[in-house]
């Protein structure tokens, strides 16, 4: 069985007090708890503070380009659906630069687990507004405050009929670790948006700010009721629900591709001589 030591990676280069530390700890707990070995995981990330995540654990890693983690993850999963493929990303990486990929990844429903460290700000480039920064927030680049409507990733995902939609909070590690397990166990594309204070650049959405608002969604909530889930997704401001907001049983993309029903793509053998028959089709 794997231990926490097996998942020990490089020393994180995050700011002291960063919400990313508890996300890291929650994830290691979830993996060790589920008995998943590091080599059974491939983590794909893009660029940003969250995208450094795979260097701070141990696992197969493709740390790619800003916004492009989901297409890489899709390619990996389609080539080898025996690998568990996870994406760690941030609000700028995934909802900004990679927005188009997110939409189509949800549509495809490839069995990828997407964990978005959502600190509502750009950290790596030092404090610009992200798609989830609240309207009116002033930053160096937005001196008059943010004019654009804040992106609601939960509502977006539910509207696209995302197979699994949850929100976590880095300040509640036990709950978050549970969400991660549920996402990993779910069959289909899973989005976990993780609220995470940025102690350096986000002076609005602080630990205190979240603690006053975040509440665990009640056990009576039926995550398979799409309209109710969508209604709950609108909650933001005084009260912010965390937990599994929506899920469904859509068939995963991998289950639909006839070619990989017997075995993963990379196990298919290849014989050059077979091409002789195909050549005959050109006569």
């Amino acid at each position: 069985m794997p231990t926490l030591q097996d998942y020990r990676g490089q020393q994180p280069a995050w700011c002291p007090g960063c919400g990313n530390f508890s996300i890291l700890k929650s994830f290691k707990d979830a993996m060790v708890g589920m008995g998943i070995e590091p080599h059974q995981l491939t983590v794909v990330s893009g660029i940003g503070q969250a995208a450094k995540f795979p260097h701070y654990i141990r696992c197969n890693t493709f740390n790619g380009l800003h916004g492009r983690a989901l297409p890489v993850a899709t390619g990996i999963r389609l080539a080898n659906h025996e690998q568990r493929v996870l994406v760690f990303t941030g609000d700028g990486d995934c909802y900004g630069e990679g927005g188009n990929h997110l939409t189509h990844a949800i549509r495809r429903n490839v069995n990828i687990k997407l964990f978005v460290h959502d600190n509502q700000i750009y950290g790596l480039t030092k404090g610009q507004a992200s798609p989830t920064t609240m309207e009116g927030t002033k930053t160096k680049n937005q001196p008059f405050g943010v004019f654009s409507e804040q992106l609601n990733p939960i509502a977006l995902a539910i509207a696209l009929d995302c197979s699994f939609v949850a929100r976590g909070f880095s300040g509640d590690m036990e709950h978050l670790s549970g969400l991660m397990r549920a996402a990993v166990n779910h069959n289909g594309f899973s989005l976990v948006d993780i609220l995470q204070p940025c102690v350096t650049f986000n002076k609005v959405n602080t630990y205190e700010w979240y603690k006053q608002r975040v509440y665990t969604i009640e056990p009576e909530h039926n995550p398979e009721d799409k309209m109710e889930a969508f209604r709950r997704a609108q909650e933001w401001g005084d009260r912010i629900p965390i937990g599994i907001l929506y899920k469904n049983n859509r068939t995963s993309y991998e289950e639909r591709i006839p070619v990989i029903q017997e075995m993963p793509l990379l196990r298919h053998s290849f014989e050059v001589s077979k091409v002789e028959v195909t050549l005959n089709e050109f006569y």
Partner: protein
Amino acid sequence: MDYTIKIGGEAGQGIQTIGGTLARLFARSGLHVFTHQDYESRVRGGHNFYQLRLSDRPLTASRDKIDILIALDKEGIHRHRDELAEDGKIVYDSTAMKETYEDPHFLDVPFENLAIEHGGNKIMSNTVAIGAVLGMLGMDLNVLHKIFEKRFGKKGEDILKGNLKAAEAGRDHAIKLCESCSYSVGTTSTSSVESKMLITGNDAIGLGAIASGLKFYSAYPMTPSTGIMNYIAGKEAEYGIIVEQAEDEIAAINMALGASFAGVRAMTGTSGGGFALMTEGLSLAGMTETPLVIALAQRPGPATGLPTRTEQGDLQFALYAGHGEFPRVIFAPGTPEQAFYLTNKAFGIAEKYQITVIIMTDQYLADSEWTFDRFDVNKVHYSDQRLRGHAIKELKEYRRHTFSESGVTPLGVPGDSTHLVVTDSDEHDESGHIIEDGETRMKMMEKRLFKKMPHIREEIAAPAFYGDNDPEIVLTGWGSTYGILKETVDLLSVSRKAAMLHFSEIYPLPETEKFDYLTVLEEASLTFCIENNGTGQFARLVRAETGYDFGVIIKRFDGRPFSVDYLLGELNAHIAGL
């Protein structure tokens, strides 16, 4: 025997059906065929044509003079009448066109009425036209019969019989009108002729990829590259391949890189605009040393340009695409046969050196059909370079980017062992983890770029040399102009010592140790670089790499391919003074 048939009309009128059927029929009858197409960026209307040349000797290009013009509308007559050979014929339907031409060059074949009368359906007009051409050429309908059996067999006896009767009616009608015609194809389907294969540049790349063990192809549709995706998609089930239509070209290249990282041979394809979006991913492939093959089928730019036409305008772009410094290889096949073998070589080199190989074609090569006896599957190389299963399990340790003498580190398959496979778009250490120090950076540049490059250069074959061994005139080209240059050299050779130098493996430029092409150029009296672009991009590459300056650069950038006759006209002005 050397005839050119042109079918002209609106998009949607059946130009492709008539031309494609005739090309297949001639190839099956053992004749050599060359076809090229000219179409507008629309599904209906406009003016399109399909040009087909047939001969009893090998063909590699189109000629300008038309022997038989099948005109499906007035525009077809208007546009191509001047291209008619002295004894050429224009076949048309005066009823459908509502116009009668009294000129002896015109043969009035009532396509529609014969189709209705003999086939029972106006839709068989195209079959009447096919029959008419066969009648004019003095060919029988046996091969057509076989083609129709395959095409219409499943649709029922009536449709098959109707089409055969329509073809007969067209043939009989044309024979009567064409009593004075002197066409002679000199073959019959009953003799034991060897059928020839007929293949486009796009299909040859698709077939070459499949023959190289391709498992994953992701792309976004873009003319003229889409044919590659279409072909491979038709083979998914048979060969165990996944073709994924991505949301954009950025996703397409990143998906291919993901699949390649996971352990399968992967490829993407696009044209210039899509390739522009892929450049970020191309750089990622360079940094992560992930094998990748990209088919880049060019069309005239900038921006959307002329979407359905041809140009060789993206060579300098492909040479420098992607931020940062990393190795790459560029191939530019001149024929579908070269496209097949070079695609195979591209997969081999991409995997062996863990780099990107770009295969450059253009609309002209992508869509033109050529005949060959057969591609030799024994010449196809397949050698899996990845560390999988036991090979990686047995290792004591594994680091994805370990320094090595050749610069290449074996590519481990993630999940096949407890060894972790880690790579990063950030500069990284041997384990694949992010670093910042200058020393490691220098070592990684040494590994990725400087150590690999000399080995890669050795793989590059010499250019093709054809013609006089001691030429006074040298025609140089790259990619799709191969056939045009070759036939032009044949014609020049009647009175001049001429040769062709054709580059199909263009970057890195071939070493002169294998074949001293620079001396050939320097010793000639007149050297031409012939390019389907406006600035002479290959000539610039040669000058940059070797210091050699071509005497004359002949450029064509109106979106149309060179033809032998066009090129001869351009050359004569310079040669006359020699």
